């Protein structure tokens, strides 16, 4: 499973991007999804530095294809209050889809689902449905939909 209830965190409070990424790295190591917290965090930041993953108002998709990752996982975090994501467009972020993929993985079903998710995030209707999420089951249903595509 790419995501289970354990990877969904609703109505959280963080002050900035790095705090969110550190939180995800912390959860991921506790859940045995990664084997190196610092490396994952650094890989996240390296990606953000290349270009921000806050790609639309309200949504960020930090992602790392990292040697630290043991199995592909998706983390979903929604925030009580929007935060800055240090993006050139000054987007404020309220919903975060964090994508963790092992460095060597490519062309698998997981990647297909994550790519489908990324491209669906460009749909206005889909974005709206994401901002309305207030239950973990909604996130799980969304992903189930994605797997059927």
């Amino acid at each position: 499973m790419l995501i289970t209830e354990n990877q969904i965190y609703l109505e959280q409070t963080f002050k900035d991007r790095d705090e969110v990424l550190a939180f995800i790295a912390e959860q991921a190591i506790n859940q045995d999804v990664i084997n190196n917290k610092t490396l994952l965090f650094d890989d996240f930041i390296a990606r953000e530095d290349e270009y921000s993953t806050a790609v639309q108002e309200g949504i960020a998709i930090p992602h790392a294809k990292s040697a630290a990752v043991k199995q592909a996982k998706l983390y979903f975090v929604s925030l009580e209050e929007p935060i800055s994501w240090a993006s050139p467009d000054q987007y404020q972020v309220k919903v975060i889809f964090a994508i963790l993929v092992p460095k060597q993985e490519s062309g698998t079903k997981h990647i297909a689902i994550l790519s489908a998710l990324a491209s669906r995030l460009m749909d206005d209707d889909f974005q709206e449905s994401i901002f309305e999420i207030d239950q973990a089951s909604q996130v799980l249903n969304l992903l189930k939909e994605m797997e059927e595509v």
Partner: protein
Amino acid sequence: MKFVGITSCIAGLAHTPMAAKALEKAGVKLGHEVKIEQQGAMGIVNQLKASEISEADAVIIAADQSIEGEDRFKGKPIIRVKLGQVVSNGEIVLSKIAKAIADKKKMH
């Protein structure tokens, strides 16, 4: 107008499909035919046909690494754009490109 293009990012996970979607979506809105080939972690998705390339007015390349098969576009106007720009502002990027190509055609 007709456009073909390539998107490709280093991880190939998110920006590749998002940029492709952004350009195709902008095409629908602005009334241009846009087909984008994705070169990402899924390999090549939505591969361009030779006929599509030959009919295209221009080629849009949004990549932060070298792409596969650039020789297919020999003789075509190629416009290189930043991936991040395309994802965030697909419509603005596409309308600028369309205008540049239209201006160039008028000159000839």
